[in-house]
């Protein structure tokens, strides 16, 4: 195996913002390697390393994905979810982190409902923190795996027309994807009801629209975001049926997009709200299963990257 260089000199992976193009490319390349059937066996890259999954929000795929990635790399892994932690007993987040830090983990995979939590904790622990989603801020490994899936379909990120559709306001997936895709030279457009488009988003290098039909034209990739139920009861959007009517993507309106369009969704889906069931299950257009599959490989690459950057920084 060639010498691997991720061009990354940070202890933590807190977000995509500021990440170099060559770092992203290295992660994608390495993920492709890990995703290859013949390399998909257990390795010893993280032997004797301790990984802690610290999840303050419900998660199935991300947590499982990190756990499998760590196990495939022979790390020891400990899962802590909020219902079993001492947070419920009134301990502060910093105290919890200090306690965990005292157990000398090498990686802390953190998901938290508040934006900025990963960055805050990174100042209080010695291990490497991987942000697995902080509030509405970032979800870097999701954006990386989305990019890996697109590359895997032989699409070049540069010049690619990506439409991100739905709840941009509350989405960390949207933000990480915008940082990543614009860094890689893709043309990103966001579409959604005005109530779910955050102020100033156009300054992040994306185009903005409130009209799905028009926006779908010329899209190479359509990324559909999850719209949480509590946002569809007359607060941010009037109702599920209205949302589906104006922003739901189905086998009919996807025809407006380019012929070889792909549809992605970070999951979990609201079938019949932001995406129609038939489209979600149409494996010729939908890359949703590929996204889950690629998740493990991308996270393996990220863990390896942080291991190497720590070694480099300690030299």
């Amino acid at each position, binding site marked *: 195996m060639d010498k691997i260089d991720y061009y990354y000199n940070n202890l933590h992976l807190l977000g995509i913002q500021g990440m170099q193009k060559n770092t992203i490319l290295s992660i994608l390349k390495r993920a492709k390697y890990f995703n290859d059937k013949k390399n998909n066996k257990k390795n010893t890259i993280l032997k004797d390393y301790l990984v802690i999954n610290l999840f303050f929000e419900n998660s199935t795929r991300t947590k499982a994905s990190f756990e499998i990635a760590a196990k495939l790399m022979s790390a020891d892994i400990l899962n802590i979810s909020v219902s079993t932690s001492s947070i419920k007993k009134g301990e502060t987040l910093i105290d919890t982190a200090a306690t965990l830090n005292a157990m000398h983990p090498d990686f802390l995979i953190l998901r938290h409902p508040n934006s900025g939590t990963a960055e805050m904790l990174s100042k209080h622990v010695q291990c490497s923190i991987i942000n697995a989603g902080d509030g509405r801020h970032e979800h870097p490994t999701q954006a990386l795996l989305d990019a890996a899936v697109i590359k895997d379909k032989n699409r070049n990120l540069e010049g690619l027309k990506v439409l991100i559709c739905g709840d941009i306001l509350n989405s960390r997936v949207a933000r990480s994807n915008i940082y990543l895709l614009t860094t890689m030279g893709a043309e990103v457009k966001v579409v959604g*009801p*005005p*109530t779910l488009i955050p102020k100033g988003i156009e300054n992040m290098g994306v185009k903005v629209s*409130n*009209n799905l039909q028009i926006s779908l034209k010329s899209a190479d990739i359509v990324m559909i975001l999850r719209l949480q139920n509590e946002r569809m*009861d*007359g*607060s*941010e*959007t*009037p*109702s599920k*049926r*209205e949302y589906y*009517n*104006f922003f739901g993507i189905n086998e009919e309106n996807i025809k407006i997009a380019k012929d070889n369009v792909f549809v992605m969704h970070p999951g979990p889906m609201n079938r019949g709200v932001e995406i129609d069931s038939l489209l979600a299950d149409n494996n010729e257009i939908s890359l949703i299963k590929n996204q889950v599959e690629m998740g493990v490989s991308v996270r393996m690459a990220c863990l390896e990257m942080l291991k190497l950057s720590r070694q480099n920084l300690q030299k």
Partner: protein
Amino acid sequence: MFRDAQTFKTKFTKMKKTLFQNIRVIDSFSNTDAQKDVLIGDNLILGIEDPYSINNLDFTVIKSPDNAILIPGIIDLRVESKDPGETHTDNLETLLKSAAKSGITTLACLPNTDPVVDDTSMVESLSRRAKSLNLSKLMIYGAASIGLDDKKMSELGLLKNAGVVGFTNGNKPIYNPLLMKRILSYSTMLDLPIVQHADIPELSSETEATESEISTRLGLRGVPSITEAMLIERDIHLIKLTKSKYHVSHISTKEGVKAIEKAKDNGLNVTCDTSPPYMLLNDLSLSNYDTRFKLSPPLRSEEDRCFIEESLENGVIDAISSDHSPQNRDSKLLPFSLSKAGSLGMETLLSSTISLVKSNRISIKTAIKLLTLGPSKILSLNVGKILKGSPADLTIIDIEKSWIAKGDDMLSLSSNTCFEGMPMQGKILSCWKDGIEIYQCN
């Protein structure tokens, strides 16, 4: 009380072309005030030419009396329908007949019926019923919030698809600031106006009049007149933020109009209308506790009234609406504080406006504009103008004729007019919708 309807020619007949020969035409869109021949047919205006220049035996020629003026059909931006919910107070048929008799060819109804118009099925049902009556055109505002409870946004997009022309909380304000911000923001993708009744519930709750010496002498609880401007100014900050379309209905105070003027000067998409009571009456009318003068917003000071009057001519106010609000006899036969607010307005809409023309407060051109093109622009309608190819929605008026306003003579099932017994100037001679005569004065 049963009243015999006047002549309503609502039957479908094979459309024949009709020529209004040598009639004075006032049209704001083309800035016309001249004698013309106007030819209509196939629902549309087919031509506007110099007098006696259109000749053909195929036409029905209508020769109008000397004083007759042909204007675009009047458009009324604010009408309260009691149907469904309170059909003993008024129903859709009497409402639309009143409109035709008032020269109103298009009227926009508030969503505060029972049930509330917060669902597409209500819009479809009302539209279908109105269409089958073949009288004036009914436009419908959708409820801005579900059940008008100011908590959650209605299905604005689906309501638009069903045909509503704007969104409002009816005779209540959209007050919740977060909801208002979201509604304004959401409405930008629909390009429909948000129509506000500018009031602050905490300040106006249980009040009966405008806070003033009059309310003090009468012992009525008063709401400060500045309340209106307070909400408008808050809204204007949100309009600036969201770049939305906003309309203040039945504006009644000097400070309120000033706030609109400032917003317009700043290039915001803001409009307003007022209603005849605020142009002609002030709170001195309350002096004998006559419940006919109980209105919402309440009658204001003479200073406010004068300012409203001036703002009609200078163009800050974009339209005059009737603020038609039928209230049954029982709800007005109560002590002032317990009686319901509201007055009939459609049948006095033209005359009360013309009375300002007769007293030289506004020009006839301004008056017609405020009743036709002004409201049409606010709702982005294709009517309100006498233009070749436009729908033949026309009204013929005689501004020299005078009459006395009597609630009992009005076609509504209710008779609560705040102009009861007052002399009125100007009558509707006939009213045409899509080329069909829907009202003719006997």
